[in-house]
């Protein structure tokens, strides 16, 4: 079993080596790609998988000590946690498809980033007075004045920021324009970030495939355990399944920080 796991280490090792080289060649692209992933879901999935490793270890322990009911119970718990992991992973994949972040002809990270930068950055306050070059707003009893270059732009921090049409009594709502430099850098980084998503889908995809196989094996072993095929004298299949399951867990332990946490700003 350990020989098989050594070959598995090298199977994933090739992906990790490719990842290492391409991340070294282009750190900003990988950081941009990584920021599109959902750290909360990734962290929950890590916890789910670690817990499933605990239940798997307890299942092996139960088999070693002739506790048949507990063996089946812990295997069922492992199975359920494995399915929860796959469900969350499926949901993440669905969002990536919806956002068109799957590498290929329809990869549209630039469009997504551009659309996000156009989203209203929030209501600053209510406009109380409007001069030719200034706009006074009120928020929570405080007054503030911004320089206004025309009816759709105000200056904040020395930068022009787009707003909805200015009118007294209305909310001053900021629509941050992508400034020219950042629009250019979006255009430059997007195609390069596609490589990050290729690695994301290849690595998590092969990991999910291993999880699927693991789920199938756990079902078979749980049924056999239920039929009383294992005892403290013979529990090798349970132990081998455990080794495989823990290995798949270890792969995720490395994937989570490498894919989700490159440049995390919650």
């Amino acid at each position, binding site marked *: 079993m350990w020989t098989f796991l050594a070959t598995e280490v090298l199977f994933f090792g090739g992906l990790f080596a490719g990842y*290492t080289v391409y991340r070294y*060649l282009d750190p900003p692209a990988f*950081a941009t790609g990584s920021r599109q992933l959902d750290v909360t879901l990734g962290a929950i999935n890590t916890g789910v998988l670690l817990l499933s490793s605990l239940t798997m270890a307890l299942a092996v*322990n139960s088999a070693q000590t002739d506790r048949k009911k507990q063996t089946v119970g812990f295997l069922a718990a492992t199975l359920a946690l494995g399915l929860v992991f796959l469900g969350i992973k499926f949901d993440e994949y669905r969002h990536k498809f919806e956002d068109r972040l799957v590498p290929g002809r329809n990869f549209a990270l630039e469009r997504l980033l551009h659309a996000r930068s156009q989203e209203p950055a929030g209501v600053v306050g209510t406009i109380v007075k409007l001069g030719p070059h200034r706009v006074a707003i009120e928020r929570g009893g405080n007054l503030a*004045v911004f320089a206004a270059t025309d009816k759709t732009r105000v200056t904040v921090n020395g930068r022009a920021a787009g707003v909805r049409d200015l009118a007294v009594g209305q909310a001053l709502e900021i629509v*941050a324009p992508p400034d020219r430099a950042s629009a250019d850098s979006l255009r430059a980084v997007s195609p390069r970030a596609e490589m990050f998503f290729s690695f994301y889908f290849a690595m998590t995809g092969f990991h999910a495939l291993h999880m699927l196989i693991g789920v199938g094996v756990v079902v078979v072993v749980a049924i056999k355990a239920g039929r009383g095929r294992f005892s403290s004298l013979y529990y090798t299949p349970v132990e081998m399944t*455990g080794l495989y399951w823990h290995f798949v867990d270890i792969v995720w332990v490395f994937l989570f*920080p490498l894919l989700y946490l490159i440049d995390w700003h919650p």
Partner: protein
Amino acid sequence: MSTHVASRSVYYATFAALLILLLLTLLAARFDLGRLSLAVAMLIAVVKAALIVVYFMHVRHGSSLVRAFAAAGFLWLAILLTLAMADYLTRDAATETTGGGGALREQKPPSVSPWAKRSAVEKSSRVPPR
């Protein structure tokens, strides 16, 4: 196959340590440690993997043969990564005139949010009381 039966408390303790390390890796990722952040994240991941291999996978009480095979996979992976990066990390030095791997690197674009210091702006431009 190991014949040693570990106490369940060992498994609970290992799981607790793994969860603490997961929180630690999240905490470390929130701080900008620069080039260290990757090293810290990988160090934590290696410790987590070691805990799983040693306790969950019973290598602690495994035979020498099991230990040798468990180590072999990681040893070969280390060779793969070391040799691959020995190439890329030294390309700049070896081919200074043509650029090499570092040529693709680019400065991180500056933060585009003009609102980072909004409160400071409002304070400085507040309408004086009449």
